[in-house]
């Protein structure tokens, strides 16, 4: 059946609506007497999440000065190039669903089984490839709908969002309002940080609690302080539903934090670089006492202090990044240049989780023809995870990557794997693949030694071939070696529990931006950008650079031009399209330099840490701070459009 027939049929459906009160502003929806969108009130979960280390009350009592500020961010759409899509087909009681996904094993399969009332063993989910996920294609809704329709009509059913639907009914980045209060003691130390964030959720829950949790981590952990508190409130409203999108709530929370810290640095008469150098969290972690019992896995988003990081090269990021920007030499006090085009430098730091995840499984099989297949239950959301995992497998086996293939994204042929989230794929899946491949290598070595009567010390592994030196010189070729193993032995399947009982595993970044603001039009041009990252050892340099460059560019849109506009009266999104939700185009690309500290992390596979999301975190505050440095006006509300800038500038023609 053609799409337009389905469209025409849809037009025949008559819907009757009962008009209820609607809220587009979370502050209105939160009022105690407000109409409830869902039973139980408009605050999701009934109350805010509250996390505290030490006591901010005591911290503020010790403070000599306190600084407060409010920061807001917009509705922002991930808008992957491929709109989400699902196709369902029944074969008797057995269901196969092809869909855009974030987790076929642990998300879609159980959700489909639950939704349709069938055992999970009867559900197969396939996500072969995807045109850009950015974490936002995280629900099973379309899979369930197509499965129900397919069951009803006895034919396969496919459903695809239009571009407008993708913008409006896909999941957006939560808009937020953050209030920050920071206490500074007699010696300039930070005595307390208190952040309160309100996020507008739309009318449906979708990874909201993870989003608000991640929003608070910057305030809790990026700066050294014994007392830190985060209160996060998720509010049901009637704007397009928000969900997860690259780094979840971290960009919102750390935008507020990093603009605020810039203001404090200035008030204390310190260069923003110097202030951050002194106060950002160091490798030993936060002060305080470990509360997690010994031997238990440590959170990678801890509240408590007293736990060191597995590695923390934030100081290196700051040093290398500021040098590449020429910060020391070129930084001037705010609003120094005569204009009308004024330049300024800005910076921001970022930290992000990425060590703990659900159980991760991997299978590695060597075939008699010499090829190796890695099977993983994760998907490649478009970031190149499969390439990286393939490389890790080849490296653990010490064979040519060309001999290795990878199969993923199919529940029927791959072992269980976690959801692609929290930038943890390289870390968790990488560890599983590495261990499976290493196990296979050991097996092969053992078998060959037994066959030859050789000692393990006397054989060498050379790209899969095994060389024996004593008692005689002899080489067993890769295929020959494989032939010694049974089919079962040639296949290794294992699962690991990623995480550490000793350390907090986090990634770090320091970003530096130079902007030029045209004070007569309000136009901001980014003239130079430096992103310095500590993501442990870099496994695949080209892909890693691509992640950083892409993350920065995507979030330049967040900082300057992108916003889903919602009509203030009706709540209808007005610009669900690429033309008006102004995503960056190639001519907007500034000169962009990526720096990796590239120091191995003791806990990660081959020393690697998370990388996918961290680049998106410090961009907006670095830009806002650079604009401040250029023109001496603070922008605490995203995106920073020419309109907003002109509205703030002292204008020539105005009365």
């Amino acid at each position, binding site marked *: 059946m053609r799409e*337009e027939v389905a469209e025409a049929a849809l037009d025949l459906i008559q819907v009757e609506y009962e008009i209820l009160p609607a809220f587009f502003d979370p502050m209105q929806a939160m009022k105690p007497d407000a109409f409830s969108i869902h039973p139980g009130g408009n605050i999701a979960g009934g109350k805010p999440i509250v996390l505290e280390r030490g006591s901010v009350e005591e911290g503020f009592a010790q403070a000599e000065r306190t600084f407060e500020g409010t920061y807001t961010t917009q509705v922002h759409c991930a808008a992957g190039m491929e709109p989400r899509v699902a196709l369902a087909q029944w074969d008797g009681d057995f269901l196969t669903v092809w869909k855009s996904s974030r987790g076929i094993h642990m998300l879609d399969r159980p959700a489909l089984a639950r939704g349709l009332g069938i055992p999970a063993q009867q559900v197969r989910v396939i996500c072969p490839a995807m045109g850009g996920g950015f974490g936002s294609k995280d629900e099973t809704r379309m899979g369930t709908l197509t499965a129900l329709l397919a069951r009803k009509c006895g034919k396969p059913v496919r459903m695809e969002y239009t571009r407008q639907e993708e913008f409006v009914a896909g999941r957006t980045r939560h808009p937020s309002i953050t209030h920050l209060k920071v206490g500074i003691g007699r010696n300039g130390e930070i005595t307390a940080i208190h952040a309160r964030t309100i996020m507008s959720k739309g009318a449906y829950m979708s990874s909201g609690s993870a989003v608000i949790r991640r929003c608070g981590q910057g305030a809790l952990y990026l700066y050294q302080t014994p007392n830190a508190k985060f209160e996060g409130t998720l509010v049901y409203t009637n704007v397009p539903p928000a969900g997860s999108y690259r780094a979840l709530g971290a960009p919102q929370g750390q935008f507020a934090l990093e603009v605020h810290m810039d203001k404090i640095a200035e008030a204390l008469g310190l260069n923003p670089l110097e202030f951050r150098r002194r106060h950002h969290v160091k490798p030993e972690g936060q002060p305080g006492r470990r509360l997690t019992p010994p031997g238990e896995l440590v959170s990678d988003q801890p509240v408590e202090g007293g736990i060191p990081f597995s590695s923390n090269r934030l100081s290196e990021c700051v040093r290398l990044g500021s040098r590449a920007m020429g910060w020391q030499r070129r930084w001037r006090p705010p609003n120094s240049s005569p204009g009308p085009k004024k330049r300024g430098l800005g910076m921001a730091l970022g930290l992000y989780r990425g060590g703990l995840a659900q159980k991760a499984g991997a299978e590695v099989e060597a075939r008699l023809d010499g090829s190796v297949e890695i099977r993983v239950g994760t998907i490649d959301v478009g970031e190149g995870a499969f390439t990286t995992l393939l490389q890790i497998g080849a490296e653990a086996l010490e064979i040519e990557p060309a001999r290795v293939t990878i199969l993923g994204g199919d529940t029927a042929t791959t072992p269980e794997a976690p959801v692609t989230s929290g930038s943890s794929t390289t870390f968790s899946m990488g560890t599983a693949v590495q261990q499976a491949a290493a196990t296979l290598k050991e097996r092969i070595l053992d078998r060959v030694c037994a066959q030859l009567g050789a000692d393990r010390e006397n054989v060498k592994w050379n790209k899969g071939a095994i060389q024996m030196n004593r008692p005689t010189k002899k080489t067993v070729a890769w295929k020959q070696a494989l032939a010694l193993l049974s089919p079962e032995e040639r296949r290794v399947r294992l699962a690991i529990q990623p995480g550490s009982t000793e350390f907090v595993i986090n990634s770090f970044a320091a970003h530096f931006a130079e902007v030029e603001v045209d004070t*007569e*039009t*309000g*136009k901001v041009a980014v003239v130079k950008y430096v992103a310095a990252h500590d993501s442990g050892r870099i496994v695949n340099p080209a892909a890693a650079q691509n992640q950083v460059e892409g993350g920065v560019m995507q979030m330049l849109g967040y900082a*300057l*031009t992108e916003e889903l*506009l919602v*009509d*203030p*009266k*009706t709540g*209808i999104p*007005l*610009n669900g399209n*690429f*033309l*008006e939700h*102004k995503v*960056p*185009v*190639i*001519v*907007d690309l500034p000169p962009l330099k990526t720096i990796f500290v590239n120091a191995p992390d003791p806990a990660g596979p081959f020393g690697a840490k998370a990388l996918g999301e961290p680049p998106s975190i410090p961009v907006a505050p670095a830009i806002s701070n650079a604009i401040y440095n250029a023109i001496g006006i603070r922008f605490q509300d995203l995106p920073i*459009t*020419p*309109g*907003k800038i*002109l*509205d703030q*500038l002292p*204008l*020539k*023609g105005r009365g």
Partner: protein
Amino acid sequence: MHPFRYAEPESVAEACRFLKRQGTSAMPIAGGTDLLSEIKDGVAKPESVLNLKRLPSLAHIREQDGALRIGGMTTLSQLQVYPVLRRNFRIIEEALSTLATPQIRAVGTVAGNLCQRPRCLYYRHPLFLCAKKGGTTCFALDGDSRYHAILQNDLCPMVHPSDLAPAFIALEAQVLLAGPEEKRLLPLEEFFLLPGQNLSRETVLKPGEILVEVRVPKPKAGTRGTYLKFRERGAGDFALVSAACSGRVLRGTVAELRLVLGGVAPIPFRARQAEEMLMGQRPKKEFFAAAAQAVLAAATPLSGNRYKIEAARTLMVRAMQAVLK
């Protein structure tokens, strides 16, 4: 997309007769880059579309009687690479280089660009039946007005989206319209209508009439021109404000000046007040600023677009500085 019939005429006369006969149920299609969006979004619902693009008589560019004659079906990219453009028609070249994207310029036509419909977010949205579409309210007036007009904006504050129109008007271009009975030639400036004159259409085109040619007189020796476009994104973005300026300085004073703004009014806005103030004056920055101020004194910004006043001021002054020297 909803189905329609498709007609291909052999001649302009046949096209006009067909359109006249069918009334509003038929629409001409050129490149389709604008019309197809309107149909897909349910804003236009033609029963038939009439293809003008295959009419060879409408796809020319030539110089004749001291003017550049551009057939309506000339694509924007054909115009862009026309050799004399850079030398004599700088404004057009600059306007084209900022207009839409290479793919759109390859298909979109000059007539289609001048006849394209508004980009007002409410107008393009299927859920808003606004005044322009036959409803009773303008949603922009007390809604999101960041992209709307600051001048002549009482009824329907949409802005005319074309980049070519201000550029052509600054060069005193004329348009040739063909109807079922007759042809008429008029200044492009008079081609556009304010909402007060016609709320549902933006041009003087009568039923059955199509735009067949644009004629741009060759500027006098010593004339300079520029097109400045202010937008949020580096490509594929309509102007927040734009300024087309053509002028000539003779023996130290302004001998000729035309200044036309885009993005500020429902039609390309001719800044006549500024032109008149500067004629015969020495070209000095203070005068430019005063002239811009005089034009903008009439501005009545809405809640979301006050910034356009300052942006328009800047563009006018910069355009005059670039041209009058």
